[in-house]
Structure formats: C-alpha cells, structure tokens
C-alpha cells in the first residue's frame, strides 16, 4: 500500500512537469503576446514592448524562461508577476497574497497610528518566523514585531476564508457534498424500486439535471428565487448562509444527477449478485443488505468519477462564479488566456492539475477501503 502510494506520487511528478512543458510550448505558439495591446486596446509601440518583454524576461530563449520560472516556483513557491495587471503577482491573485502582512500591519497601525503607512517589512514575514523587522520606506529599521500564535492563527483563518482559491474550494466543497448527499440516496431508491413510478420520476429528474447547463440553471434560480420571490440574494459569497444556496444548487445539480444515475446502474448490477442473495437467505434485514452489502460495492464507480469532479469543482467553476459574482479563481481560467497573461495561465493550469492528481490519488486509496479485493501491485 505505502509502496503503491509512493509510486503513484512519484509517477505524477513527470506528468506535472510534462503539463508545464506543454503549456509553456502552447503559449509560444499562440499568436499575440501580453504586450501587443495596452489596456485601452491600442497597440503598444515596438520599443516599449521590447522593454516590457525584457523586464519580465520574455526576451530570453524559451528554455531559459522555463527554467527560471520553474526554479522560482519550486524554490520559493513564487508564480511570478502577473503580466497584464501591473504590480500584482499571480500569488496575490490566486492565493490572496500574504495575509500575515495584513495582520501585522493592523498591529503597526495600533502602535504608530498614521505613521504606520510609511512602514514596511524588511522581508515578507512568514508564519514560521518568530519576528519580523519593520523598516521605513527608505530602509531605515524601526523595530522588530513579534509574531504571536494569535497572529498566525488569524492569518491562516483569513487565508481559509478570503483567499480566492479557498473561496472556490468552498463553493466546490458545498456542491460536492450536496451532490453526494442527494445523488447517492436517489440512485439507491430508484434501483430498489426499479421500474416503478418512483424510479421513473427519479430518473427523469436526474436526466433533466444532467441536461440543464449550469449557467442556465443559475439564471433560472436567480429569476425565480431572487427577482420574483425575493428570498435569496443574487450575488456574493461568505457573508450570509443565504448566499450559499443558489450557487451550491447550480453547481451541484449536474453532479447530483450524474451520481444518481451511476449509483442506480451499479446498484442494479450488484443487487443481482450471488452474495446479495446469500445475505438475504441468511435472513439479514433488508436495510443491512442494502446499506452494508450492496451499497459499498456499488460505490466504486461513483468513487472513480469523484476524483476528476472534485478537481474541477474545487478549483473553481467560472460559470457559477460569474453568474453569482463570487470572487474565486474560476474567472482566471478564461481571462488569463484571453489576456495572454502567461504566468497566470501557468498558475491556473498548475493548480488544476495538482488538484486533479491529488484527488485521483485519493480515489485510488479510497478503492482500497471500499473494496479490499482491489490490490495495489
């Protein structure tokens, strides 16, 4: 088991590296660059463009750019500066930047008042440091600020609630939970009541759920529950539980319907197996037969699809985020490419592929728990 996990992790490293290489290559083929047009859409003069390319190291040979990028990424977890949004880094856009800086700045403001605005840190503080050196903008040291456990806790809390990548993960997690909690029981019930009206209704609903595009579902929900009935807010995330409902339903319905159909199909297959007949024959209660014997085995296909599904949902569904104006990372999947923001493209692709790799690994491990017969060679 451990050897299997280790081997899977090691195998994923070349896959991830290959993905970065292919992405880097694709970006070279794509016509146009980040600096072919300014923010107003007017073309940028060639001299200025050359300077900008030099500033970001884009004038170097491709392999050198690639090695520089990977070096910074692996050594410092630095995704580089955004090429289209001056002064912003990809780390800020995806991870919300360094939340510890915000926490410590608040302390500085308490201590020094307005003078705090002219102060900065000698180097970016991290939660692993015990103290940070505060300097004035001209470099003159002012004081050490000690980082307490409360500061670290506060920074982590802010990261978990406010960072765009975490906002996306929250939306995805709620939706996955919803999809599983409704989808699996729905699938079980319609399998047990096969060819009755319950089965037909459940399967029609899930077919509808698979067929309705989530942006249309979102818009219809907004129309009915926000505009006509006025029960729920049309946008936002993280301020009220009411904001959770519509995005979760919008994102969750497709998966819920898919899981219900999958559960039903595999349940129908399992329920005819010999060991189920045996279980019934020894007089076990129907509930025990279904929940302990049949369900466990019928969950294997569901587990398989869960990996890619969670990777896609937790890294942000830009449609749901767009329709409900949620500040996650989903929007970058589109805007990064249309803007040719190379570093942001790399950042989003990497986050997605790492999530995919991790969740697929989790699925493989989960197999072992669900069905011990699945051996890891």
């Amino acid at each position, binding site marked *: 088991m451990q050897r299997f996990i280790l081997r899977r992790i090691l195998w994923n490293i070349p*896959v*991830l590296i*290959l*993905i970065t290489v*292919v*992405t880097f290559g*694709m970006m070279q*083929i*794509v*016509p*146009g660059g980040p600096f072919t047009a300014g923010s107003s859409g007017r073309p940028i003069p060639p001299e200025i463009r050359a300077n900008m390319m030099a500033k970001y190291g884009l004038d170097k040979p491709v392999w050198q750019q690639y090695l520089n990028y990977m070096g910074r990424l692996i050594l410092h977890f630095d995704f580089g500066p955004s090429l289209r949004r001056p002064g912003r880094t990809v780390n800020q856009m995806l991870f919300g930047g360094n939340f510890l800086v915000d926490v410590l700045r608040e302390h500085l403001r308490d201590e020094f008042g307005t003078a705090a605005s002219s102060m900065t840190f000698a180097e970016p503080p991290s939660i692993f440091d015990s103290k940070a050196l505060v300097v004035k903008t001209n470099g003159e040291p002012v004081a050490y600020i000690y980082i307490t456990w409360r500061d670290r806790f506060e920074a982590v809390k802010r990261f978990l609630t406010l960072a765009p990548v975490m906002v996306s993960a929250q939306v995805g997690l709620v939706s996955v939970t919803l999809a599983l909690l409704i989808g699996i029981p729905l699938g079980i019930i319609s399998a047990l009541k096969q060819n009755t009206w319950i089965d037909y209704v459940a399967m029609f609903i899930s*077919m*509808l759920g*698979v*067929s*309705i*595009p989530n*942006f*249309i579902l979102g*818009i*219809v929900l*907004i*129309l009915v529950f926000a*505009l006509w009935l006025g029960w729920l807010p049309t946008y936002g995330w993280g301020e009220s539980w009411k904001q959770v409902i519509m995005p979760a339903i919008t994102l969750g319905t497709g998966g819920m319907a898919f899981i219900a159909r999958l559960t039903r199909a595999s349940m129908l297959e399992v329920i005819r197996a010999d060991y189920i007949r045996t279980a019934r024959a020894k007089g076990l209660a129907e509930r025990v037969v279904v929940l302990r014997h049949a369900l466990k085995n019928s969950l294997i296909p569901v587990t398989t699809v869960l990996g*890619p599904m969670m990777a*896609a949902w937790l*890294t942000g569904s*830009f*449609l749901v985020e*767009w*329709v409900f104006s949620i500040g996650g990372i989903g929007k970058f*999947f*589109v805007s*990064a*490419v*249309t803007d040719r923001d190379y570093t942001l*493209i790399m950042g*989003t*692709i990497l986050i*997605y*592929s790492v999530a*995919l*790799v991790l969740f697929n690994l989790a699925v493989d491990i989960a197999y072992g728990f669900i069905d011990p017969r699945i051996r890891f060679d």
Partner: protein
Amino acid sequence: MGLSASERAKRHEEEQFLERGVSLWQDAWHRLLRNRMAVAGLIFVGILVFCALTADFLPPYSYREADYENTRIGPRWPDHIFGTDKLGRDVFSRVWWGTRVSLTVAIVGSLTSLIIGVTYGSISGYIGGRVDNLMMRFVDVMYGFPTLLFIILIMVVLPSENAIQGMINIFIAIGVVGWMGMARLIRGQFLSLREKEFVLAAKMVGASHARIIARHLLPNSLGPAIVSLTLGIPGLILTEATLSFIGLGVPPPIPSWGQMVSEGWRGLRATPHLTIFPGLAITLTMLAFNFLGDGLRDALDPTMRGTALVRAARRKRRKARRAAARAAKA
C-alpha cells in the same frame, strides 16, 4: 399437439423468424423503437434537423431583421411569439436559426473527435505493448488540462479568415478536446478483440494489418463508438453554449443559444423571455440527445442482443394462446 393447420403454420413462421436471425442493427433499431423516451428524443432531434435545414426561409423573420418599433417586447401572438430583443429582432426566429449552430457543433465536433480518437486508439490498441503504454500516458497528460482553457488555447492557435471559418474552428477545437475518451474506448475494444479467434483466422489466411483493422476490428467496435459519440453530443453542445455565453464562441450577428442567453440575462428582471427561450432550447436539445444516447446504449448493448425480437415473438405467441383459450371456453 392439437393445433390446427393454420396455427401450426403460424408457429412455423414465428420459429423461422427467430431462426433466420436478425442483424445487430435491425435488432438494435427494434429495441430503440420500444424505448419511449429514446423515440421522443429521436423525434425531437428530427425536428431540430428540420429547423436547421429550413432556417433560411421558413421562420417568420430573418435572424438579423430588426423591428425598431417593437423592441424588448414580451411574447406576443401572432407576430412575435417569443418576443423581441433590444434591437427588435424576433427571438423565435433567432432560436430557430440557432439549431444550425448547435447541430453543426454536434456534427463537426463528433467527426473531429471520432477521426482523432479512432486513429489514435486503433494504433495504440493494435500495436499494444510499450507503444500503447506510452500513448495512453499521453492521454493521461491531456486529461490534466482544464478543458475550457485548452479549447480557448486551440481556438487562438487556429487561423481564421472570416466569421464562418472562425465558427468552424471553434467547433474543431471543441472536438479536439473530446478525442481522449474515444481513443480510450477504441483502444480497449481493440485490445480485447485482437485476441479473438476471428482475428487469428484472418491472420491465418494472410490478411494485412490494414485489412484486419478496417474489416474486422473497426466494425466490431462500431456499436460502443456510436453510443459514446451520441452520449458525447450533449457535451459538445454544452461547450459551445458555454463558450458563446462567456463571449468567446460564435460571433454576434449569428444567433447561438448560449450567446442569446448571455445577451439576455443582464436584463433578466425586465425581459426574462430573452433568456428563457434560448435556455429552454439548449436544455431540451441536451435532454433529447441524452435520452437518445441512453436508448442507443441499451439497444446496442451486446449482452442484451436478440432479446427484443425474441420477446416480441414470445409475446405474440402468448397472446395467440390466450385468445385460443378464450375461444375454447366460449
């Protein structure tokens, strides 16, 4: 046996019917027709095809014809039954025209993924071994990309001279992302089929590799491929609608449902009809293809093969027996 001559003749006819054997396709067709939802889906797809073919002359208005006197009006009988948009263009006619975009993406996308997937999967599955391993690892890597991001990248790479060319490029890009599933399917089929006796027999009589692939392996993989293709169509239509919704799809004067939804939903409160009708069109189309694909899968499932006609024949026989019993009682 106590059967009359005519009954015996009838029984004989049925037996012959059962023995004559029906081709897989005939049988699948019969099974498909017995599935009500699949038939409904098939009929709806037929209507879509009709709409797409007649979109140039049958709708009451052209898709770009603006009626400036009647802008943003709700559904109104009989001139604008789905209402009009901000330029006074008739929503009904535009939805009608939109079938063209959706069906074209279904055809072009399917063909693209079919061509790439079948070629790739055949090579991988037929050669097998290390080559197969390497080729499948590449598929794994391709799965590692977020689909939409990849489509946008491909779209930007493909050159386009005009709007139509651009539109076709989008469809090809959508298809390019979908080939991996097809490749895996064909490869799996080939891996199991190439060990079968009939392939061995073909090799014995000296058939070339090309002949074995084209005459023996591919036709036997066709059923699952068709099912997978049909079940893939809703995904293609959805991707096109999504791209058009975010403004990266079909360019504006051409009406695509996704783009109509995106134009309409900013004014959702005042003019919900601009969103609802194209949204309904997308949903119904996806529903129809899903039901059709589902029905096809059930119909083409080889393990169920032959059962539909056998069952039909048995039922007929049972009915006849019951009628005979009733007649005897009377």
